[in-house]
C-alpha cells in the first residue's frame, strides 16, 4: 500500500514537473508582461528595471531552474499584477474550486448512475433512449450557455436560486449543474456498458438462478461491480471539472482558481499562471491517487494485488 502511494507520488511528481515545463515555456512565448504593467509613457529604463526586478532578463532555462528551485521551497514568486505571493493567491482560491469541482462531479455521478443503470436494465427501451439523450444534452451544450440559461430561468425568472456568489449550499447548485452536466453522457455510457457486462455475467446469472430479487441484483450486486470502471475514471473527470471551472467560475462569479488563472493569462501574470496550473495539476495527481487507493474499497481484487 505504502509502496503504491510512493510510486504514484513519484510518477505524479514527474508529471507535475513535465507540466511545469510546458506551462513555463508556453507562457513565456505569450509575450512580455512588463509592457502591460507600465503606462504607455513609461520610459524604457523603467521597463528594464521591472524586467530585472522579476528576473525576466535572465535566459529562459535559468529562469525555469530558478522557478523550480523557488517553487520547491513554496515560493512561486509574486504576482506581477496582484503584487502578492502567487502561491497565496492560488491557495486562497483553491478550496472554492475544489468545492465547485466536487459538487459538479457529485451532480454528474448522481445523474449518471441511475440513468446508466436504468438504461442497461431497460436496454433498447424508451427509458434507455430518453435517459441517454438527456445525458447527451449536457455534452451538446456549451457550459457557459447552460450557465446563462440556468441563471435566466432559476435566478431571474423563478428566483429560486442565487445567480452568483459563494458560501451557502444554494449558491453551488447552478454552477454545479452547469459544470457537471457535460460528463454525464460519458459516465452514463460507462455505467451502462459496465452494467450490461455485469448483468450478462455468470455470477449475476447464478444470483438469478438462486432466486435473488431483481431489485437487489441490479442495485446491489451488479451496481457495485459496475461502479469500478466509473471509479477508475473519476480522477480524469475531476480534472475535467477543474478545467470546466475556468469557464463556469466566470459566469457565476465563483471565487476560484479558474477565473484567477484566466485573468492572469490575459495579463501575462506568469507567477499566477504557473502556480494556478501547477496546483490544478497537483490536484489532478492527488485525486488520481485517491481514486487508485479507493477502488480497492469497491474491488477487493485490487486490494490484494498491491
Amino acid at each position, binding site marked *: 500500500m505504502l509502496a503504491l502511494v510512493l510510486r504514484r507520488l513519484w510518477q505524479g511528481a514527474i508529471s507535475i514537473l513535465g507540466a511545469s515545463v510546458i506551462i513555463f515555456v508556453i507562457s513565456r512565448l*505569450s*509575450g*512580455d*508582461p512588463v*509592457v*502591460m*504593467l*507600465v*503606462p*504607455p*509613457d*513609461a*520610459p*524604457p*529604463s*523603467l521597463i528594464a*528595471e*521591472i524586467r530585472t*526586478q522579476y528576473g525576466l532578463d535572465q535566459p529562459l532555462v535559468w529562469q525555469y531552474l530558478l522557478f523550480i528551485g523557488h517553487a520547491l521551497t513554496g515560493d512561486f514568486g509574486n*504576482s506581477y*499584477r*496582484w*503584487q*502578492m505571493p502567487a502561491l497565496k*493567491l492560488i491557495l*486562497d*482560491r483553491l478550496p472554492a474550486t475544489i468545492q465547485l469541482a466536487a459538487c459538479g462531479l457529485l451532480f454528474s455521478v448522481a445523474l449518471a448512475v441511475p440513468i446508466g443503470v436504468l438504461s442497461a436494465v431497460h436496454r433498447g427501451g424508451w427509458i434507455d433512449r430518453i435517459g441517454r439523450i438527456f445525458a447527451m444534452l449536457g455534452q451538446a451544450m456549451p457550459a457557459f450557455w447552460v450557465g*446563462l440559461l440556468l*441563471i*435566466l430561468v432559476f*435566478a*431571474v425568472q423563478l*428566483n429560486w436560486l*442565487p*445567480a*452568483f*456568489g*459563494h458560501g451557502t449550499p444554494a449558491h453551488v447548485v447552478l454552477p454545479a449543474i452547469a459544470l457537471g452536466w457535460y460528463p454525464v453522457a460519458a459516465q452514463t455510457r460507462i455505467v451502462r456498458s459496465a452494467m450490461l457486462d455485469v448483468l450478462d455475467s455468470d455470477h449475476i446469472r447464478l444470483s438469478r438462478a438462486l432466486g435473488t430479487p431483481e431489485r437487489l441484483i441490479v442495485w446491489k450486486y451488479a451496481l457495485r461491480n459496475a461502479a469500478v470502471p466509473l471509479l477508475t475514471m473519476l480522477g480524469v473527470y475531476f480534472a475535467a471539472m477543474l478545467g470546466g471551472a475556468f469557464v463556469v467560475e*466566470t*459566469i*457565476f*462569479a*465563483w*471565487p*476560484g482558481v479558474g*477565473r*484567477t488563472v484566466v485573468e492572469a493569462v*490575459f*495579463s*501575462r501574470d506568469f507567477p499566477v499562471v504557473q502556480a494556478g496550473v501547477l496546483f490544478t495539476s497537483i490536484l489532478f495527481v492527488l485525486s488520481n491517487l485517491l481514486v487508485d487507493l479507493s477502488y480497492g474499497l469497491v474491488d477487493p481484487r485490487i486490494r490484494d494485488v498491491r
Partner: protein
Amino acid sequence: MKPWITGLAAASLAALPLAQGLAQSGTLTVGLGAEATIMDPTRSSAGVDSYFFGQMFEQLLRTDPDLKQINWLAESWNLADEGGKPVITVKIRPGVTFHNGDPVTSADFQYGMQRQQDPKLSRFSHLLNAVEAFEVIDDLTFRLRFKEGDGSFITSNLHLWAMPKRHIEKVGEEEYQRAPVGTGPWKFVSRTVKEELRLEAYEGYWNKQNRPTVKNLVIKIIPEDLTRVAAYKTGAIDWIDAVPPAATAEFAKLENTSTYTAVTGNNLFLNFNTHQPNSPFNDVRVRRAAAHAIDMDAIIKRVLFDQGERYAEIGRGTPGYDPDLKPYPYDPRRARALLAEAGHPRGFEVPCYNLTTPREPNIKEMGEAAYAYLSAIGIRCQIRQLEYGAWINLGRRDAPPEMDGIVSWMWSHGLPGDPGTPWLGHLHSYQAGKGLGSYSYTDNAEMDALLRQQQTTMDPVKREALLKQIARIKHDQVLGGLTTYRPMVTIAWRTSKVAFKPWPSPGFWRNFQEIGLK
C-alpha cells in the same frame, strides 16, 4: 516669488450640497464588474485599481461631480515661479486623520512622494521626474520645487496621495498591503480576492458634508454581465456598476431604479501607420477619406446603444476642449473621392487590428463595424482580432511586431483627463529610449515641437491655448489617429433603498463618496 495662481479654491466646500446628517448605519451591497488587484495607490498598475483604493485614499485636489477641480486635502495651494523654475506651495487642510486616528501632516505627503518615486513600488515613478525637491515647511505646509515645468502635474491633482508614514513604518509593508489605511470616507475591513471587498464608513472622516451615510459597504465582484444584471434583478445587490450597454434601455425603464450615465475617462481612436514609407496613410487625403467613411453616430446608436460620446480630439470637460472642433461628417461619397484623388481609385487592402478586450464594452463590435465602413469605401480591412496583451505588444514601437495598418487604440487619464501626457506617447514621433512616441506611428516635427512645449508649460491658461492649437492641427491633418468616441458608463441603483450621488474620484465614477440607505 511671483504668484501665478493662488488658491484655485473657486469651488469651495461650502458650495457643495449638504449631506443628510443621518447616523451611519446599515449595510449596502453593490456589484462591480471589474476587480482591483491592488489596494495601494502607490502600487497601482491599472485603472480599475482606483475603483477600490479610491474609496480609502485621497489626494490634495479632486474633481467634483461636475468635473471641476476643487481643493480636497489641500486647504489652499499656489504655483509660483522662482528663478525660472516652478514652485508649488500647499497648505494641508487641518483636522484630517487617517483611519487609525493619526493626523495627516506634511511628512505623510513627503512619504507618499518618496514611495511614488521608488520604481520598486510604483509604476508611475517617472511622472514625478520633474520634481526636484520636497520641502516640509511645517506640519501642514510643504513646498514642491521643480526642475522644469510639468504641464500635467496640476491636472493630475498634484499627483500626491496621503500615505500614513508612521503606520506603514510600524506595521510593515506586507501588513499594510493586506490592510490599507488611508484618509478616505471608507475604512478597510476585509477583502476576498475574486469575491468581495468589505468596507466600513470612517467615523472620523473629515468631510462631514460629503460622506456616506451607510455603515457597511460590501463590494461584490461579478464580472459576467448577465450575472451582474441577474444579481441586481434578484435583489442580491442594490447598486450595479457598468450596466451592459444592451441593457441600459431596459434599466432606464425598470421600476424603482435610478440610472446615471456619464462618460468614462477613456478616449478611443483608430490609429494609422504613417511612419512607414510605403503606407497609404502617409497621404493626408487617405486619412481624411477614412475620417469621412465611418458613420460613427450610427455605430454609437446601434452598436454601443448610445453608450458613447462622439468627440473630436479632446472630450468635453478635458483641458484643451474646443467646442468649435467638430468630428468629420459621415460622407462616403467624399471619402471615395478623396481616396481616388490620393491615387487609390480602387482602394487598397490593409490589415486592421481589432481589440477584443472585455474591459471596454462592445469595443470589438465597434471595431468590426468601423472596419466594415472603411471596407465599404475601398479601404478593405483584413480584420485581425487581438486580445489585450497581444494588442499592447503590437502597439509598442520598440519591439516587433510592427503595426502596419490600422489599429483601434485608446488613451485614458481619468476624469476629466489631460491629453498632454498621452499625446507624448501616441502623437510624438518615436524616439527610442526616451519614452517619447512609444505607441506613435506619426512622424511630424511641428507636432513634436508643440508637444514638448505643452509638456513644460504649467500655466493652465497658456497650456489650454497650446493644447487647442495641437488639437486643431491634429484634427485637420488627422494625425495620431482618428478620434472616434468616448465610452459611457451607466450605473443603476434601487431608488427605494439607495441614496446615491455619483462622484468621479479619482478618475472614474465608481466612487461611494455620498451613498446611503433610504
